[in-house]
């Protein structure tokens, strides 16, 4: 288990910092708070928000990264969502997608169901699990300085990369993106693929 340090980072500031450098990034967000965080920064046609499919964000990102090998793909999801599909890290590691980055916004809570503790609150080390699966690049971030160092890793380092950002569990206002599934799908695909 990893050494535990004081958690102070504000999740909205973390996500805003990461997305400031997004360029032509394709972003997949896991259901719940990471989707609200991304929407709070900016509703963008290159965002694919998951409203369901709990545990499926990383795999959706992998499918997208394999289908679009020339584009950088970032999956931003929560610790609870990641834990529910943690076996998928093995599938990612075997495929070795060089264009895929995974960033966990880890508040150690299940935010959508009443802030119950997840296993990361008890020391479960997601980057160590990713490393065990075969990820060559993993990091845990506790401070803005460490985040600034991790952002180029998310965008530029040959993937797959895995960064776990420890954030405060302080509540944030809910900022909802569009919720109609086919609309979100068409918007993303048309922006990426042209008229389809």
């Amino acid at each position, binding site marked *: 288990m990893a050494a535990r340090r004081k958690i102070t980072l504000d999740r909205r500031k973390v996500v805003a910092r990461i997305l400031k450098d997004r360029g032509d990034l394709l972003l997949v967000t896991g259901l719940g708070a990471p989707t609200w965080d991304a929407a709070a920064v900016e509703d963008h046609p290159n965002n694919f928000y998951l409203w369901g499919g709990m545990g499926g964000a*990383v795999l959706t990102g992998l499918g997208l990264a394999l289908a679009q090998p020339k584009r950088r793909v970032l999956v931003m999801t929560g610790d609870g969502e990641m834990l529910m599909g943690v076996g998928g890290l093995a599938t990612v590691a075997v495929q070795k997608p060089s264009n895929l980055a995974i960033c966990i916004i880890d508040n150690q809570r299940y935010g959508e169901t009443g802030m119950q503790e997840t296993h990361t609150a008890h020391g479960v080390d997601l980057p160590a699990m990713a490393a065990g699966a075969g990820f060559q690049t993993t990091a845990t971030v506790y401070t803005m300085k460490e985040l600034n160092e991790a952002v180029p890793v998310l965008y530029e380092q040959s993937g797959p990369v895995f960064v776990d950002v420890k954030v405060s569990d302080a509540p944030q206002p809910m900022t909802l993106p569009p919720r109609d599934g086919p609309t979100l799908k068409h918007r993303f*695909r048309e922006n990426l693929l042209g008229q389809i």
Partner: protein
Amino acid sequence: MDISQQIVESLARNNVEFVTTVPCKQLGGVIEGVEAHPDIMHVPSNKEDEGMGLCAGAWMGGKRPCIIMQNTALGVTVNTLATLIQYYQMPLPMLISYRGELGERVACQVEMAVHTKALLDQLTIQTYHFHQPSDVEEMDTILNHTFMSRKPTAILTDSNFWGGY
């Protein structure tokens, strides 16, 4: 050409470029065929709900997907099927080995077989049942229909179709 190869050729002919699989003895020939095919990307997964996510991502990236799985997997994919594939109206052919039908030797497999069609019906998933080897001739039409309708489609392939256990 054997029926496994006919299925692989039909997938390729219909521009299915991304196939995810979980191992199955009956579907072994198809899985080997997609692995070997130069126009098809084959991504093995650990569990079929991983496969649902993979297929959703591939479709978002512009590739026609297909998942190859056993009917027992319906039990683990219901949530991702409903809240990912169906919520976003994505097309997805599901080529399914229909274990637990006549000729089955593992009694436990029957427990999911008796729920298979009821589950698919409850999920309003278009379902086709291949029982005779000649049923494979419908593959092209089913794939075309799947991508036209932007919905998941189940193709149940039973033991008789594969020539027995």
